[in-house]
């Protein structure tokens, strides 16, 4: 099990196993087994808290230069003209997993320039609840569920971090507490 990696790519969970083959590596992801060779290009380096490896991956007669950056939550890979973002499945903390919940979080650091609801207010899914200014643009945050505003955690003018909880909504179809 030493080579098992569990990551999410979009909505898909991938389990990737690596083992040594005769002339390189055998990488198994789901049903497919890939035979490939990989050579490191230079030493790995630390960049802003992440670890960056570069390697030459050869598969099917073609060589690709791959750049892999690992952070605590994600592995970013640039390969063949594309950038892939893999979220580490085992270390997911729930940030970004708020779809369809009553938690309205800041998608990125910014400044709250409007709070459009108050505790007790009734909101429908899609209703704007707050306006965040980040990088000189206004972003309107909407309720993802219909329900009642249970709490507002920020004031206008507040500077918030990414993933900060701004507003909590008790979904109307939620069981009574």
């Amino acid at each position: 099990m030493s080579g098992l990696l569990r990551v999410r790519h979009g909505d898909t969970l991938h389990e990737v196993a690596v083992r040594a083959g005769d002339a390189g590596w055998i990488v198994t992801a789901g049903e497919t087994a890939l035979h490939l060779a990989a050579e490191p290009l230079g030493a790995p380096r630390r960049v802003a808290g992440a670890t960056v490896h570069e390697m030459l991956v050869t598969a099917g007669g073609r060589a690709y230069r791959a750049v892999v950056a690992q952070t605590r939550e994600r592995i970013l890979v640039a390969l063949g003209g594309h950038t892939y973002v893999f979220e580490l499945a085992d270390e997911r903390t729930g940030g970004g997993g708020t779809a369809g919940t009553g938690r309205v979080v800041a998608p990125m650091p910014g400044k709250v320039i409007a709070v459009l609801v108050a505790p007790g207010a009734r909101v429908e899914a899609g209703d704007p609840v707050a306006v965040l200014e980040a990088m000189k643009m206004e972003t309107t945050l909407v309720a993802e569920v219909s329900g009642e505003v249970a709490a507002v955690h920020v004031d206008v003018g507040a500077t918030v971090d990414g993933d900060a909880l701004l507003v909590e909504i008790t979904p109307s179809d939620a069981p009574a507490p």
Partner: protein
Amino acid sequence: MASSACEFGRVLIANRGEVAIRIARACRLRGLESVAVVSDADRLAPHAAAADRVVSIGPASARESYLCIEALLGAAKAQGAGAVHPGYGFLAENADFARAVRDAGLVWIGPPAEVIALMGDKLAARETARAAGVPLLPGTAVAEDDPDEAHRQAAALGYPVLVKAAAGGGGKGMRTVVSESDLAGALAAAAREASGAFGDGRVYLEKLAVRPRHVEVQILADGHGTVLHLGERECSIQRRHQKIVEETPCTAVTASLRDAMTAAAIGVARAVGYVSTGTVEFLLDADGHFYFLEMNTRLQVEHPVTELVTGLDLVVAQLDVARGLPLGLRQEDVRPRGHAIEVRVYAEDPGRGFLPSAGPILALREPAGPHVRVDSGIAEGYVVPVDYDPMLSKISAWGPARADAVDRLREALAETVLLGPSTNVEFLQAVLSHPAFRRGETHTGFLDDHLPHWAPEGPEPALALAAAALARQAPRPDGGSAGAGPAHEPTPWERLGAWRLGG
């Protein structure tokens, strides 16, 4: 005026990012020293090291740094700068800043403050264009405290209408309103955004042209009466009213239309006594009618495409003009050649409504190759701040024909490695690859029409997953390994000796 002797040896660059680096390069070419300014968020930014000197001007907040006239003038004085180049954005079109620079006895590298003030008031600019005989879209000022009047005005223009900031630019304070019920909210939001961005919340209404092209004419004028045009650029591909793809020439502009548009642009420039670089923006409708939009009284973000086809250096020309030198060029000396396209690389997520992104750049490889130009403001390890516009760099390509330029630019984007914040690099590739774009069928609604629900779809991620799994098990610089198995079970990476040697 600009024709009087105004020598200077040191230029304060009142901006950041790629344009600050661009200006520092031009200064060096002219033997001028340059002074970079940095906010606390930009202390380690690449532009800090691009100039001959660097000075801190304040906290991260733009209002207290790049938008703070006193801080910038103080820096100019302290550093002995004789001139100020404002770049684009921030205070580039702020007449008060231009005036303050002049009053401090420094040279403003740009048009006179009075011209900035006149054209910066979009309503006054419309009147100037009207007087110069240039066609306008129907539009009207909005009475600030009379919402009923605004509703009557919008109804008279006919929906859809555009709410625009009188002091606007860069898409800030702009809202499209398709029906009456959205008008009040749009007016309030536009006024709030305009007030925040420009300190002036006045807005006006303009009839929204449907599927027009955005075509602009580059003006270059000196203080000796020479006013030249450097051809047109098409910048129709926009999201949030901000351009992301720009090219020259425009596929829809015929020779006779070019004559008419450039003559109109020169007419506007002459009418206001224009000096330095400027851009007259038009909308071009499907029938080949064009309408004055506004004049940008500064260097334009997309100036590289004009440089690629004309061979001119617009920033060097700005420096020369500011020193009172004649351009030494006639209109017939400007002979554009081939086709050039630029894309703007933004830290944003096109799959999530172009939501801005920020954070450290973990890996960066910028493209190269024949006829590829990169104007970049980032570096590996640089932390993209949340405080400013999320443009990271611009990539441009030239080709003898449009298709060559498109292909080259697409290749350049595919070569680009940028790990860290989300970027629009793959989205830009999708734009350049789209059949309608390749046919030149572009208009300001292009992205909504053709790529409304774009999501990144690379090939199957199998190889990338393999690379991730291998890297996961490789030793780290600190000697650890996130995915190392039990000690008795050697990890596959131990067969790759170089990792051990390197790590």
